């Protein structure tokens, strides 16, 4: 008798599936997930976990969190990060301390793996939801993440 119960079950599951898609169909006009991108450029909000490019946030006084420890440079599997660093006397303690001169990030080589961000002990670098990365010259994709004249925030140690 399982023959007929198979048919019954088959029809039932098919109808269940159809009611699910039918429900989608009915409220597609309101709930469409399509982003009409160039039109809604102003209001478009990317998702929290979107990986666009690596950036280094600075506060209002042009200070950042990067101590120049080079963990990110070592963690990067394809050498997309280069850190040019220096030593300078820290006015607070009077000792010589490592500091970054330039945090160079090659967006053209980055695979968005996120290992650098995980490796950073001070959370100095984060993901930015910025995806409009096309440029006419690939040298424009080599970016210096610390802003000119910026310095590390006082008291940040790795």
């Amino acid at each position: 008798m399982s023959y007929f119960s198979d048919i019954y079950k088959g029809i039932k599951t098919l109808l269940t599936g159809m009611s699910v898609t039918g429900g989608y169909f009915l409220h597609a006009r309101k709930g469409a997930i399509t982003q009409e991108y160039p039109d809604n450029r102003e209001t478009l909000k990317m998702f929290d976990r979107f990986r666009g490019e690596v950036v280094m946030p600075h506060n209002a006084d042009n200070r950042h969190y990067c101590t120049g420890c080079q963990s990110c440079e070592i963690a990067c599997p394809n050498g997309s990060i280069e850190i040019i660093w220096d030593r300078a006397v820290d006015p607070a303690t009077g000792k010589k301390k490592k500091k970054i001169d330039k945090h160079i990030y090659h967006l053209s080589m980055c695979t968005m793996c996120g290992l650098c961000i995980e490796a950073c002990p001070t959370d100095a670098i984060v993901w930015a939801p910025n995806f409009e990365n096309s440029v006419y010259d690939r040298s424009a994709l080599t970016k210096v993440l610390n802003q000119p004249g910026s310095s590390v925030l006082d008291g940040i140690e790795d």
Partner: protein
Amino acid sequence: MNFLQMIIPLNITKTISDWISSIMPETAASYTIMVVIAVAYLALFAVAGLYLVLLERKVAAWFQLRIGPNRVGPWGLLQTMADALKLVSKELTSTIKIDKFLYNLAPYFVIVSALMAMAVFPFSKQFQAFDINIGVFFLIAISSIGVIGILLAGWSSNNKYALIGAMRSGLQTISYELSVGLSILTMVLLTGTLQLSEIVEAQRTGGWLILQGHIPSIIAFMIFMVAGTAETNRAPFDLVEAESELGAGFHTEYSGMKFAYFFLAEFINMFIISSIAVVLFFGGWLSPFGITENIAWFPEVIWFLIKVLGLIFLMMWFRWTFPRLRVDQLLTLEWKYLLPLNLMNLMLMAIIIWLNWTI
């Protein structure tokens, strides 16, 4: 000459045919009229096919919570027109080792057999190009010619994916043709005629056939829709062009307009299957409960189109809901379930008619 009676309002066709007959001898006139009707049908269904493609894309988008084509023309209405223009302008490429003659012949086989079937449908009382008394039989015969085109395409492309796709198509059509035929036969038992216009007329007094035949009719309708979807090679029965396994199946090697013929034929076939279902189960061009029966100017073709679009929507619903079947599942479904059910259903229908239990 009943193929002269087309499109009712204003009697344009009658005027044209009178005019042609007046300037030509009898035989020349009838040939001219045939050509005119053929060209009209060709143009009509090419455009209808294009709009079915657009409808499919819109419906698919809505099923997937997307928006669908909305850039070309208002609401994207000109999208498929633009696609067709693009395809016409494309180069017709082919590989070196193809069988040239068959390769070029195959798309025409598919599209011509699809268009030929259109001729016998009674879109309304007067809008029917060719009303033969074996209409249903003609339809079944024509609709299985298309698969020869698919087999030819797969074979002549000299490409293993194309050939696998074509063989699957052959397999599928041979199996499901049985179900289509038997479920149609069940309904023909009820009407006792193969002529499509008379099948429609039989529903004027007794109500639509799906109601007249109640249980066996409903079962026949369900089987017909399943087998009909399989006949058109659409998902969930699209093993023939299974993109993930076979590239594009039998039309892998086709480009430009020849590809477009295959594509268009799929949509016209969908229209044909729905039209057969409308004529056999839902009263063709008859209005529901006869609400427009006494309004003389009302174009009954609208009812036909509404019903056909409803069934086409159902097929699209299938397509965007169900996953593709495996080959063995396909054959199990046909030979283990649909065919025995269909035979039982045929018996049931015969008994019901014999005992006069129809409504």
